[in-house]
């Protein structure tokens, strides 16, 4: 086709949708080019005054919008023009364009009301159908309000083709315009007794949606639904009725007993898997207290599980996981199938099986199930492998490691996870390694062993996803170095050349951990020197067997190794790495001289000893888990002005800093430490290490006396009677004090309890907000008026019905007759009501409605009793 198409050609030889599609398939221009050319054409054609040309252009545009993502909102007015055509073909194109592109914000929406009304009143049922479809898709409050009378009329149509669609549209009309309930509800309910399966299916579908939104308002209709449940043999209808009962039974437990039998009957009778599954789902989700029904259901689930059809297998597993929380035996009975499903080729089935396995986990089988899962993780694809790892991690850590008894085993498992090739859950493992270290004292030796194995594994350093785990391992081997078999090797591992592969932040952790190890080694060396020199042959305290291993030579060697490995890092471009490396090197330079000269190390006054003891104290403070809400719990003491200028603080500080500065002349290069030193010294003294100067603590005590209001409250004496106390309550201690947790795991004898003590915070461990609940509340208020409308409509209806039922029940044989008279009766009363409504003014209508609403509350409870 030539590139210059003229306007004459547009009108005479307009390309139809078919031509457009053919053009696409030829792809002469490339897709985006072709679309923009076609759009140009459409823009021109759609302005034509000829409705044929216009509608064809609109048709093409809808096609492009639906399948190629072309915007068509600009053509909204043209759609309105086309829909007003009297020709069916145009009308259909117009309605299609409107349903496809209009929304509440479309401004020309106001223009279609009359056209839709006209088409709803059309004698042609297919035009009516188009208008109904349109209303059901884009109906707004205004449209629904204006067209309610037409919908009401159509609900009484004799043609089921129209009637079923009118029933379908009611859902949208109710949702947008609640007052329509008063007009249409009765006719809707009447259709529950329809013998036409199409109509019944449509109306049950509408009630299913209404019951999903608000089960309470549909509860009074339970007898009608029950009748459908018992009588109908149409699977589509039964599925929807089951869905309704699942909702109703959740708010009215007595209903469950009543419907259980018919549901079981359907399950025994039907061959349709969809219906069986719906029965199964209804029982497991809403009737799980009914033992007999559950038994039958579990048998049916088992049938599903052994089927070859992967869909049934999947749904069977799905149903099992719904039933699992209440009837775990059902899962345990099918354990083999579940385990087998783990190796299914279908990812859905595998995932469902995994969830079920995790549901079975308890403290007795956790190691067995974890072992199975780890084997699966090793041979699974990366996605599923990580799903497995995540499931195990979250199941085991649930509620502060509730199900873990043997922490040595669990820590080893964490180490194993790091070695699974596809493992990408490094951060979670990192968190748990550190968390266990802080919470579970007895797990620390094993933790150090596992960390050590991780640190020396050269393969792990190259894996980006494992870096967080290595970071945790490094931290653990530094923090709990006292459990290390060979601190010297730990340092070597921490400073191995391949650590260059790590990101700087983690490298900094490595360096800092090496520093901690060095301090520990020096400390043990000095203290062993001390004990030997004072000629006390007593063995040093338990758990420090490695302590005695340090000789002068090994310490010197260690210092040299660290100095050699960190030397190059002092020039690192990363500030964190550089600073840490320089800190360590600076420290080494302070002590090295004396160590190398092998001075009399027994002398407590030597600088290196002082520095070592000082640093040891820095690191000796134990970390504990900190509650996420710890900060909030610190109540502001009376009279503490947080927002006031702290100008006078300098005076206060200067007062007590002065003597310290003069005192620390020997540490000439450490003046900046002085503030922290005060604190450290104080601790040092409290922990009764040897004989540090008393002046700092006395000064501090004095200061506290004078400026007590600046101190946080502390009751440390009550809680920590066993040493390591300090005048400053540390953040984590504070948190525990305030959460009133008897946080005192430190000296608890481990043999008294089989499971090691796990520090647990009262809350803080999980501070989950549930945003879903909030949303629910919002939607609830939105639906409220709809449910009120339904309830009041039901009240009116039931007043008539109660009488009927009273007459009808004793003569069950005559029921059909009664039924039909009831419908007539309703129709009459409906008409009466309608007339009355028209006469009555708005004000009285509102008043009566409100009364109904109030009355309906007591009525609701009464109605289902007929059934029970």
């Amino acid at each position, binding site marked *: 086709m030539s590139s210059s198409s003229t306007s004459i050609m547009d009108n005479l030889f307009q390309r139809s949708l078919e031509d457009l599609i053919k053009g696409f398939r030829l792809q002469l221009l490339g897709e985006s080019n072709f679309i923009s050319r076609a759009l140009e054409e459409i823009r021109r054609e759609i302005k034509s005054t000829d409705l044929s040309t216009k509608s064809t252009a609109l048709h093409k545009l809808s*096609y492009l919008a639906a*399948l190629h993502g072309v915007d068509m909102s600009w053509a909204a007015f043209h759609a309105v023009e086309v829909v007003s055509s009297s*020709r069916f073909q145009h009308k259909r194109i117009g309605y299609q364009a409107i349903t496809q592109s209009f929304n509440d914000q479309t401004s020309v929406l106001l223009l279609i009301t009359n056209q839709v009304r006209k088409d709803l009143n059309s004698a042609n049922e297919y035009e009516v159908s188009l208008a109904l479809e349109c209303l059901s898709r884009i109906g707004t409050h205004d449209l629904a309000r204006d067209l309610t009378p037409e919908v009401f009329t159509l609900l009484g149509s004799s043609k089921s083709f129209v009637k079923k669609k009118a029933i379908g549209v009611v859902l949208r009309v109710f949702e947008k315009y609640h007052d329509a309930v008063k007009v249409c509800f009765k006719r809707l309910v009447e259709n529950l007794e329809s013998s036409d399966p*199409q109509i019944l299916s449509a109306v049950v579908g509408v009630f299913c949606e209404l019951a999903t939104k608000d089960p309470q308002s549909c509860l009074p209709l339970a007898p009608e639904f029950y009748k459908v449940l018992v009588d109908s043999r149409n699977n589509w209808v039964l599925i929807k009725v089951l*869905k309704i009962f699942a909702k109703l039974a959740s708010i009215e437990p007595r209903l469950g007993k009543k419907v259980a039998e018919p549901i079981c009957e359907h399950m025994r009778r039907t061959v349709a898997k969809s219906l069986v*599954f719906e029965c199964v789902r209804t029982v497991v989700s809403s009737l799980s207290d009914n033992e007999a029904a559950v038994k039958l259901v579990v048998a049916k689930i088992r049938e599903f599980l052994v089927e070859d059809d992967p*869909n049934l297998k999947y749904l069977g597993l799905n149903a099992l996981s719904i039933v699992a929380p209440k009837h775990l035996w059902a899962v345990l009975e099918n354990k083999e199938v579940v385990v087998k499903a783990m190796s299914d080729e279908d990812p859905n089935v595998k995932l469902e099986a995994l969830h079920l396995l995790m549901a079975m986990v308890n403290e007795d089988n956790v190691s067995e199930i974890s072992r199975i899962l780890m084997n699966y993780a090793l041979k699974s694809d990366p996605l599923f492998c990580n799903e497995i790892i995540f499931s195990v991690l979250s199941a085991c850590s649930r509620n502060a490691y509730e199900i873990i008894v043997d922490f040595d085993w669990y820590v080893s498992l964490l180490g194993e996870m790091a070695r699974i090739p596809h493992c990408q859950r490094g951060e979670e493992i990192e968190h748990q390694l550190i968390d266990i270290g802080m919470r579970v004292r007895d797990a620390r030796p094993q933790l150090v062993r596992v960390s050590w194995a991780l640190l020396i594994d050269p393969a792990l350093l190259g894996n980006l996803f494992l870096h967080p785990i290595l970071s945790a391992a490094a931290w653990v081997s530094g923090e709990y170095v006292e459990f290390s078999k060979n601190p010297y090797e730990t340092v070597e591992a921490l400073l191995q050349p391949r650590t260059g592969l790590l990101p700087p932040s983690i490298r900094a952790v490595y360096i800092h951990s090496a520093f901690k190890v060095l301090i520990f080694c020096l400390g043990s060396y000095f203290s062993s020197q001390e004990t030997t020199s004072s000629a006390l042959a007593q063995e040093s305290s338990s758990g420090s067997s490695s302590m005695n291993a340090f000789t002068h030579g090994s310490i010197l060697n260690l210092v040299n190794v660290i100095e050699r490995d960190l030397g190059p890092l002092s020039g690192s471009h990363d500030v964190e790495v550089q600073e840490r490396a320089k800190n360590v090197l600076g420290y080494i330079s302070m002590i090295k001289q004396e160590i190398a000269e092998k001075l009399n190390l027994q002398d407590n006054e030597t600088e290196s000893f002082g520095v070592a003891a000082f640093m040891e104290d820095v690191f000796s403070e134990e970390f504990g888990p900190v509650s996420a809400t710890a900060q909030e719990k610190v109540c502001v003491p009376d009279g503490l002005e947080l927002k006031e200028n702290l100008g006078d603080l300098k005076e206060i500080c200067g007062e007590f800093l002065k003597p310290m500065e003069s005192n620390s002349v020997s540490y000439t290069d450490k003046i900046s430490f002085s503030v922290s030193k005060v604190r450290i010294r104080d601790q040092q003294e409290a922990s009764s290490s040897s004989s540090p100067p008393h002046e700092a603590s006395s000064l501090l005590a004095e200061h506290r006396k004078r400026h007590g209001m600046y101190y946080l409250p502390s009751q440390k004496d009550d809680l920590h009677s066993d040493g390591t106390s300090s005048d400053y309550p540390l953040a984590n201690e504070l948190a525990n004090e305030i959460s009133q947790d008897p946080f005192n795991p430190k000296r608890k004898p481990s043999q008294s309890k089989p499971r090691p003590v796990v520090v647990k915070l009262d809350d803080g461990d999980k501070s989950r907000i549930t945003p879903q609940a909030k949303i629910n509340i919002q939607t609830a208020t939105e639906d409220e008026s709809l449910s009120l409308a339904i309830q009041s409509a039901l009240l009116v209806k039931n007043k008539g019905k109660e009488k009927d039922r009273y007459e009808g029940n004793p003569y069950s044989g005559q029921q059909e007759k009664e039924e039909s008279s009831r419908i007539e009766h309703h129709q009459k009363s409906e008409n009466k009501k309608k007339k009355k409504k028209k006469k009555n003014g708005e004000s009285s209508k509102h008043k009566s409605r409100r009364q109904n609403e109030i009355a309906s509350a007591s009525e609701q409870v009464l109605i289902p009793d007929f059934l029970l």
Partner: protein
Amino acid sequence: MIKAVMMMNTQGKPRLAKFYDYMPVEKQQELIRGVFSVLCSRPENVSNFLEIESLFGPDSRLVYKHYATLYFVLVFDGSENELAMLDLIQVLVETLDKCFSNVCELDIVFNYSKMHAVLDEIVFGGQVLETSSAEVMKAVEEISKLEAASNSISLVPKSVSGWRGR
């Protein structure tokens, strides 16, 4: 409620897409692409369900069926039964088969309008209203007749409603 109906070929080209809640076209295209990227990675002979809550929000499920070069996809919420939805795809395909006698991808490509006519008879505003392919065929044929008639007697358009029987 049914949230969306899609048909796409095995190369990911959409052949029919209908969303029952309003959605901007960009979002529609994104969803179609998202669904296809999951579909095409699935092996044969596995279950016909997909986890798609990440795409369509909470309480949304998806079933699909793979026929020759086409995927038929239904997205729906908790008020529908998964197996019934699979049956519904079957109904849809059977109806198309009757419509075009041995339906193939090309029929679906070139009969965009008729495809919608079929689908609209089965699913009405997100609700399943018809599951008998005979009934659907009857309505679709009636609609085709009406369209043809409105074309041929374009000079006397008013006569359409009178002409139509029943």
